């Protein structure tokens, strides 16, 4: 039989030493910052290149109908929207650092709300993005109707509609289910831990 004081002595004599030096932590800070900045830079470069290609097509291909121009405008808007979403994600990643000094109970509540909001925002963003893309294709199809033979046009439309249906009912549903499950399990865990601080 041991008393708590004996356990305390046992603990104090036997906790291993930390193997992480100050220099290693500084290197991790530097590399983390650089890694994130590089990742963000690549995203910005990829979207900027996409926008340049889009503008190149816009300027060089002689589109006839105004609906095609509107479609291109919508596509450009979708890309800017996606870029903005990337930027917001980057800013959100700094959330932890900003909220770290809170009391544990408040921190867990905030974390729980953040997770739920992020899930809602991501799934809603996906639908907006999908609607805008669909609208852009519909607008562009008006020009295709005049430019292509009826058979090719119908074939192309069937392919596009089929693709959107798969995206919406298979990919989006799978994405939402997966996110929902992940977020719910995290929220349950956070709830469980938060209750320990009540």
């Amino acid at each position, binding site marked *: 039989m041991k008393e708590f004081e004996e356990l305390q002595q046992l603990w104090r004599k036997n906790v291993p030493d930390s193997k992480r030096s*100050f220099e290693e932590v500084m290197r991790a800070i530097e590399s983390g910052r650089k890694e994130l900045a590089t990742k963000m830079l690549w995203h910005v470069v990829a979207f900027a290149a996409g926008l340049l290609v889009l503008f190149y097509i816009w300027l060089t291909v002689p589109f006839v109908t105004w609906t095609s121009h509107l479609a291109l405008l919508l596509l450009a808007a979708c890309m800017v929207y996606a870029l903005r979403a990337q930027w917001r994600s980057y800013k959100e990643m700094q959330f932890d650092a900003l909220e770290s000094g809170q009391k544990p109970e408040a921190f867990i509540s905030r974390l729980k709300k953040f997770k739920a909001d992020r899930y809602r925002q991501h799934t809603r963003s996906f639908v907006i993005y999908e609607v805008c893309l669909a609208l852009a294709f519909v607008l562009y199809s008006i020009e295709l109707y005049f430019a292509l033979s009826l058979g090719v046009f119908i074939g192309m439309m069937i392919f596009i509609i089929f693709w959107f249906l798969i995206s919406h009912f298979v990919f989006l549903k799978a994405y939402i289910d997966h996110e929902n499950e992940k977020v719910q399990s995290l929220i349950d865990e956070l709830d469980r831990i938060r209750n320990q601080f009540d």
Partner: protein
Amino acid sequence: MKDQKRIAFKKLFEENSKKVFNLCYGYTGDADMANDLMQETFIKVWQNLDKFRNQSQLSTWIYRIGVNTCLSHLRSAKRKPTEELNDYIIENHTEEAGEQNEQVAALYRAIAQLKENERIIITMVLDEVPYAEIAEISGISEGNLRVRIHRIKHKLTEIYNRIERV
């Protein structure tokens, strides 16, 4: 300016890293994971050093960041569910028992069977952090905390003695 921040940070690291490591070690029961969490804590300290406004002692603030880092490490991809983590700690320290002191292994296994907040609180008690500071770190009133610490001490001793008897 940046050099000054680095010097101040180095001092903070030297004064507090061992305490934060012990906290993380008590929480996870795993030295590698504790090193990672300790590092993550100090990365957050570095990022927020300019925002520290002396509302509390610097060491309390760092401890609190450590506690929140431990509590939120369940978000990481490498995370194991609590039950699985407890099993892992128990298994890990059972395997080490041959090489290490059996009593130490039993102590780690006993801590692993406590709830998350109990692990955090008892680790600070084991490290002799003053009760007032533990209360401020955990956001629990001092009166309430004393009762809670009494219960956790009792629970830990009971689990430890049960393990030792087996």
